């Protein structure tokens, strides 16, 4: 196998594993929000693994983009890393990948700087994860050369199932309870105009 093919395989491989990492990140993120323990991990363990999975995923995306930049098949230009839908190869699907990468940078940066930007800004930006995952998923389906294969479809299906189940749980009635019966805190009412 020559170098060019290796880059191509590496590019696709890192992309797929990144998707799995972000799937894990989504599920663990929702579990963190729930305040529950899971998979034998403490609450801290859940949050920590969520963080680790996301950073691992980010690293894989960097490798994914990096290898594809040097791969002649991908025809990736530097501008395609930031501005979506300008690429030469499958511009629509690749554009989604660029968009996902942009969102990823936003989410990771705001998370690392969360103590500086405060809880409200952090929460607002972190919510874009709900946009990030579907965009990344569609990018994988559309751009991925392996998209037609059985194993790819199986992995993609598994990821979609996991995220779908997690989001379903997130939107359910029982999610809000932290496992302790209590009167919930209330948001202060709108300010009375002077």
């Amino acid at each position, binding site marked *: 196998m020559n170098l060019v093919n290796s880059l191509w395989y590496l590019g696709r491989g890192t992309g797929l594993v990144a998707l799995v990492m972000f799937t894990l990140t989504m599920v663990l993120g929702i579990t963190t929000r729930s305040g529950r323990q899971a998979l034998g991990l403490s609450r801290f363990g859940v949050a920590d693994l969520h963080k680790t999975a996301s950073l691992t995923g980010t690293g894989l995306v960097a490798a994914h983009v990096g290898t594809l930049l040097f791969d002649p098949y991908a025809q990736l230009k530097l501008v395609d890393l930031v501005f979506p839908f300008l690429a030469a190869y499958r511009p629509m699907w690749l554009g989604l990948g660029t968009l996902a990468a942009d969102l990823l940078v936003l989410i990771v940066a705001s998370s690392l700087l969360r103590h500086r930007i405060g809880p409200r800004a952090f929460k607002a930006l972190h919510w874009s994860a709900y946009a990030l995952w579907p965009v990344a998923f569609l990018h994988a389906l559309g751009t991925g050369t392996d998209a037609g294969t059985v194993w790819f479809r199986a992995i993609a299906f598994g990821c979609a199932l996991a995220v779908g189940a997690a989001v379903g749980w997130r939107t359910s009635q029982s999610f809000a309870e932290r496992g302790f019966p209590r*009167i*919930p*805190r*209330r*948001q*202060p*009412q709108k*300010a*009375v105009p*002077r």
Partner: protein
Amino acid sequence: MTIAPTLVAPPDTRRLFAAPGPSLAQHRETYGDLPVDVDLPDLVEQAGLLGRGGAAFPSARKLRTVASRGNGVVVGNAAEGEPASDKDRTLLTVAPHLVIDGLVLTARAVGARRAYLTTARPEIARQLRTEVRRRRDRLRIEVVEVEDRFVSGEESALVNALNGRPGVPSDRLTRVWERGVDRRPTLVHNVETLAHVALLARFGADWFRSVGTPEEPGTFLATVGGAVSAPGVFEVPYGASLTGLLDAAGAMPARAVLVGGYHGAWVPGSALDSTRMSRTSLAPHGASVGAGVVAVLGRDRCGLVESAGVAAYLADQVAGQCGPCVNGLPRMSDALSRLADGSRDPRLVDEVQRMRRLVVGRGACAHPDGTARFVASTLRVFADEVAVHLGGGCSAAAAR
């Protein structure tokens, strides 16, 4: 410091209430113009003035802090969320210009160009706006109405309301004198404190200290209510006897007296004669003068029943932001109410005590702490009544 030569310092303990009346003309006639060249921080420090809003914080300290930071804002607070208190409203009706004088002098001392007066009553706001307009101070004074809730007058809640946010307290790690209205250092003074400043600036620290106690100099306004024939607001020197104050209001024979308002404590009937309105005399009962609220519990009432009512009100008045308070206060109040209503379950007492300990210090403001203090005092002073209730009776029912 210049004092108007024809001005006569109030000779006795009738100081704030010696004011001639609400109009600016009357005020100027009695007190002359605002004194100039006043070194207010020094004066206030020498006078030993303590805040009259309930916390009794040394006023000079807050003044110096905000003055040193510059670019500050001053707020005269008459929000008076305490239902049993009427002194701020009364003061503003009787001597609004003493309050505004104090506001202007304080603003000058800290270099503030903007000041606010806050109240929860629309009629007071209207009156204040009228009186402010009549004056010609260079200070920009804005009169702001805040919500009529128990926590509205809390310092950070007030500042939040002035910043256009919901009027609930903020976390106390950042104090308002560091960052408050429009992110500026903010000095919040109760309106009564400001009125004392206005007199102090004219008559001096020695005069101010000539009544009261060395630790708590001067006079304060007390709101006396409950089982009294002549309820109202009285001006009293610190250290005055509690029974003297009760007599002035025509109090009936009392089971106990609540001192310091709903976050205060009960003084039992047996201790009334020996109790004075001072920190040292009230401390053994877990009470302090606070904002001067004195409520008399008549012999025809039950201390447990009345206290349960107060606790229920306090539980209802939570801002709702803090988990331990939002959960703990209703639980504490429910247990107390069930005791008052005649439940004979002794575990209820343990539940009240447990909740009381669980909520202290676990909120953004002092609401859970004050409520816990009141409830602790209730169980202590009315311990006999609790025993009566657990036995199926009630002293008040028997008294009737």
